[in-house]
């Protein structure tokens, strides 16, 4: 069983990697790029939000920190395209470092209060970046454009984002079966009991939080380089934070597949609606979707189908 799954996944990844060679329109490359990006964001959010049940409503902050860090590193060292792409890794590390600093006090707070403190954190980072001249302030930062035809540069970014997605999902797969994952699940069901059983709750919460900030940081850097222009309003947008949570919970938090399904469905629906319907009507249908899914599948899509299948 395990072997077939791995083979199926390898084939799927190979097909996705081969896609740009079919010379598709740039639109489809961009679309897949954002699907990959949201899968990364939702899956890494799941480390802390899904497994441990600590709903972070400020994950756009890590995405944005990665974006600004990449843009700044590239500008200061005047990096070539390849090095700029590599610079997203230290940018992700910066996001992870911020997660360490902020997570230490914040992860002591539980329930909805944690949600609100992370929401505030995202606002504070957003406003701080806007007010700091060094980071482009209210004007934002322009990055150097890759010196190749548009289709090639889009294809390169597509492949890099795909690679990051595969790595993130690999880590998510490992986490689901590791001691760390088991500890996080214990925290979710009852933190006091977990502590009594000798699980170092404070330590593993921080570890999960750092991991869940690292990948969005890298994704933010890639996104910045993809747009070649970043502004605090774009990357620190509160609706990105909320969307990440919704995607993961929509599919089913605390599972490997849930955030993937949630991210793919919501990105496709969002894109489809905004292409075929008037903007407001599209948003109304989008909102109704959340309501319908919550009423009929209050514990996420995955949970719904598991129950159906398992009887």
């Amino acid at each position, binding site marked *: 069983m395990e072997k077939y799954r791995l083979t199926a996944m390898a084939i799927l990844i190979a097909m996705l990697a081969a896609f740009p060679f079919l010379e598709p329109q740039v639109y489809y490359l961009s679309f897949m790029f954002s699907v990959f990006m949201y899968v990364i964001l939702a899956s890494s959010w799941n480390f802390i939000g899904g497994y441990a049940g600590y*709903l972070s409503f400020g994950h756009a902050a890590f995405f944005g920190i990665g974006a600004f860090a990449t843009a700044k590193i590239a500008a200061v060292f005047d990096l070539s395209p390849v090095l700029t792409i590599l610079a997203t890794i230290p940018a992700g590390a910066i996001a992870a470092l911020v997660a360490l600093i902020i997570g230490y*006090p*914040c992860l*002591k*707070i*539980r*329930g*909805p*209060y944690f949600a*609100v*403190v992370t*929401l*505030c*954190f995202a*606002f*504070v980072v957003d*406003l*701080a970046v*806007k*007010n700091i001249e060094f980071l482009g302030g209210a004007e934002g930062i322009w990055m150097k454009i890759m010196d190749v035809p548009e289709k090639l540069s889009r294809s390169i970014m597509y492949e890099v984002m795909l690679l990051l997605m595969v790595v993130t999902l690999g880590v998510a797969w490992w986490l689901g079966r590791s001691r760390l994952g088991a500890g996080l699940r214990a925290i979710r069901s009852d933190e006091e009991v977990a502590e009594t059983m000798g699980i170092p709750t404070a330590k593993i919460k921080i570890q999960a939080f750092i991991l869940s900030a690292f990948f969005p940081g890298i994704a933010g850097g890639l996104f910045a380089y993809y747009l070649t222009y970043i502004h605090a309003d774009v990357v620190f947008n*509160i609706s990105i934070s*909320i969307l990440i949570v*919704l995607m993961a*919970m*929509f599919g089913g*938090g605390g599972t490997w597949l849930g955030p993937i399904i949630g991210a793919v469905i919501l990105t496709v629906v969002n894109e489809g609606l905004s292409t075929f319907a008037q903007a*407001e*009507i599209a*948003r*109304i249908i*989008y*909102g*109704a*979707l*959340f*309501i319908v*899914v*919550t*009423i009929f599948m*209050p*514990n996420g899509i995955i949970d719904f189908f598991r129950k159906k299948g398992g009887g």
Partner: protein
Amino acid sequence: MDAVLLTQSLISGIMMGMVYALLSVGFSLTWGVMHVIHISHAAFGLLGAYVAYSLLEYFGVDPIVSAAVSVPLLFLLACGVYQLLIKPITKAKEVIVASMILTFGLAIILENVMVLIWKADPRIMTPTYSSGALIVGPLYFQYPHLVGFGLSIVGITAIYLFLQKTYTGMAVRAAWQQPEAAQLYGVNLYRISMITFALAVSTAGAGGISLALLNSFEPHSHNLWLIYLFLVVIVGGVGNVVGTALAGLIIGVITGLSMALLPFQWVNLVTFGLLMVFLIFRPHGLFKQGV
């Protein structure tokens, strides 16, 4: 720093704070009593503001008068929303999460319905007395601000008296403190939840009208209002009416003073920074007592 300017901004901060408090009190109740985080709360408030705006523009009905009609209407609408949408999710594994996702969808719907009906342009409520002002020595109070302030005080007092003095209000408090015990004493939790929810939404409507008398508004405004809801409710303590009122005042004064003392772009930074620090040290609010 000019003493007059300081007093002026202190007083407008207090007014603003009272309005925040009215807008937040229902949010605090639904959260405390029902464990429902009602993301579309502020959107319902905005809906109240828009209804009042239209009645004023097209029929010349004063917002205070029309509130007597639109607030009960919102109550009925909210009863329907509860039966149709909120009640089915109360059995979810995690009600708080499910309610946040569902009401987030509801907020998107309301926002875009408002864009379709009233367009995305900012609106200002202009009742007949809008240009008038009460002048006390060097201080200056616009009448709409005073009316909005008055409406909030009335609203908060009404909900406080309802919870303390009426039988239904006591049942709401009982349901909050000990749901099982309350049920044993014959309290119908679903009925109580419906009343709490509907009451909360109608206070949001009244709060929206008050806020519209103080500030301009547009269909997206509810997002910022929502942040203030969280701010006030967390500082005041979830489910605590008096705490919410006090927290509204504190936050109003802080924003009022920081607007006078700091460059505009730093105001929100200070507010959210304070809330963060606050949450880390006092996550359960300033005041311990519940409902």
